[in-house]
């Protein structure tokens, strides 16, 4: 077990290296020196030279001890992403500040959608082949075809603006539950089609097994078969989905945060796109990748806990 974890950890080293390489190519080679953009239109030569010095664009790209390549690696690995162009705040501080509101939105959204879609999937799988099943698959596909933006805009318009059930926009004095409720609901509803369809397939694969027939044959109720026996055995694909979704929870929801004015990481990124703030996007990309790699490792370890048949070789 320990040796397996160490082996997997070593395997992440080239991945992290690759991510750093990609962000370096994107933000240092393709995008390159944008000091004139930061300095503005009527900037003096000294200002531009100062900016170049701060972000290291006056250094050679590769072959020097203090080249851009080396400092990109060093800065990223120590989470020192420099200052944002727009307001001179340290990028890492912005990210730390944005994580809490993002999690306040995404965690209830994620748990809600997981519980609802898995229970619905069990029900639909139980009625497989019937009219309920066919209809629900069609509704799922239809829901998957509606763009996310429309869910948000119509939801906000009708539920918050027209009928006044929820606050329209983020307001710092409100309790968290109040302003998170509507975006979380919309997020759950928009994602329901895709996740219900996925879990239905998982459950159907599971229902084909012999042990399900045995359980029904010995007279167990449908509820006990579905929720006790099938659910436990369907855990492997569910765990994969759950653990790999966690990094995305930290990143927040780009569009939901934008529309409801929640000052999380998604909002931060929209701001950064608008202001062409490459520093922020670079930092978010790297942190997102690190989280993904870490949780990927955790998934593999989780497998061994729920399913002893998974070997480490």
């Amino acid at each position, binding site marked *: 077990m320990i040796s397996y974890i160490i082996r997997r950890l070593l395997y992440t080293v080239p991945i992290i290296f*690759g991510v750093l390489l990609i962000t370096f190519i994107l933000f240092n080679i393709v995008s390159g020196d944008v000091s004139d953009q930061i300095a503005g239109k009527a900037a003096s030569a000294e200002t531009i030279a100062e900016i170049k010095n701060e972000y290291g664009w006056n250094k050679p790209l590769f072959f020097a001890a203090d080249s851009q390549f080396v400092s990109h690696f060093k800065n990223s690995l120590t989470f020192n992403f420099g200052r944002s162009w727009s307001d001179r705040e340290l990028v890492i501080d912005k990210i730390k500040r944005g994580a809490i509101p993002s999690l306040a939105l995404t965690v209830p959204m994620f748990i809600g959608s997981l519980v609802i879609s898995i229970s619905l999937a069990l029900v639909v799988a139980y009625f497989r082949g019937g009219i309920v099943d066919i209809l629900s698959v069609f509704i799922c596909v239809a829901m998957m075809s509606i763009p996310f933006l429309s869910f948000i805009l119509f939801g906000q318009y009708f539920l918050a603006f027209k009928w006044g059930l929820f606050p329209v926009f983020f307001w710092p004095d409100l309790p968290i539950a109040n302003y998170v409720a509507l975006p979380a609901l919309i997020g759950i509803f928009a994602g329901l089609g895709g996740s219900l369809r996925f879990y239905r397939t998982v459950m159907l694969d599971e229902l084909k097994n012999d042990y399900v027939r045995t359980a029904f044959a010995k007279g167990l109720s449908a509820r006990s078969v579905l929720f006790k026996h099938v659910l436990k055995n369907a855990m492997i694909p569910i765990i994969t989905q759950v653990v790999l979704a966690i990094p995305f929870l930290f990143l927040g929801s780009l569009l939901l945060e934008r529309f409801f004015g929640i000052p999380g990481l998604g909002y931060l990124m929209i701001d950064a*796109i608008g202001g062409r703030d490459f520093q922020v996007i670079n930092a978010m990309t790297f942190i997102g990748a690190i989280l993904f790699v870490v949780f990927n490792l955790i998934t593999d370890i989780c497998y061994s806990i729920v399913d002893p048949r998974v070997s480490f070789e």
Partner: protein
Amino acid sequence: MNNAAGTIKFNAVKGRSYWLDSLHRLRKRPLAMCAAFVIAVYIAVVAFIYISQWTSIKPALLQWNQQVGREYESPSKKNLLGTDFLGRSVLRKALYGAKVSITVAFWASIISLAIGVPLGAAAGYFGKFIDDIIVWLFTTLSSIPYILLILAFALVLKDKSFDFTKFGLGKIELSGISTVYLAIGLTSWVDICRLIRGEVMKHKQREYILAAQSYGCGNSRIIFRHLIPNVFHLIIINFSLCFVGFIQAEVILSFLGLGEKNCPSWGTMIDTARLDLPKGYWWEMTAATAAIFVISLAINIFGDALRDSLDPKLKTR
């Protein structure tokens, strides 16, 4: 003893190729055929827009920037879907938006297949060192959350010009639509690459490849003439399943201001309609949503049917 050969009747059944057989299975699904018809209508609209751009035929229905009435006219018989804030017809804008979306989704699919298929085939066929490098490349790309990756690419490539005059290619200016499909295409080849690699690894052990090798076929001939035709149905299935995702990605990128600015797309329509919605002007938002919904639904249904008929061994039900 005189059984003339002429009296024996042959009940010869004409063999059907794999593709004809699949088409036959597909034809039996009425819903899928309806979806195919809808897709054909969209493609016809896009083709018509391109033809009218290249020739001088300018039908009134495609003059999207013409003023047809007062601003914010609600849907009526004259203007079927109402007008926008400049008095332009929403219907015409929605029709024109199909061009941007479908062009983007098409080129993005082509780019992602052009990268993913050869890399996947090479990784699966050659194995060893080449496999290690390609697997490393796509594991790295897939470990960056997709939305971040695509935003980073779109942001960096936006309004960028590459000077390829040294290589005799001239200067390539990226703007609007080309940024979007390049960003989507360059980031979304991972799935197809992984799929093709796995399939090729399976096929490599089969007798027909061993036979081709023993005949002395070259590697590139084996890959392109033998392996890729045998996994081609996966490429088609992947193409149809990606398409919807690309259309939706284009909407989001255009909405974020990273896409086309000068002509209407469904994403920019939603972006402008966002501020009109609270004032009660619902038709532009609804038109864009409906346009996206219908094409996505059609491709989703058709793609599922296509997968079932091209890959009958696959159990989806």
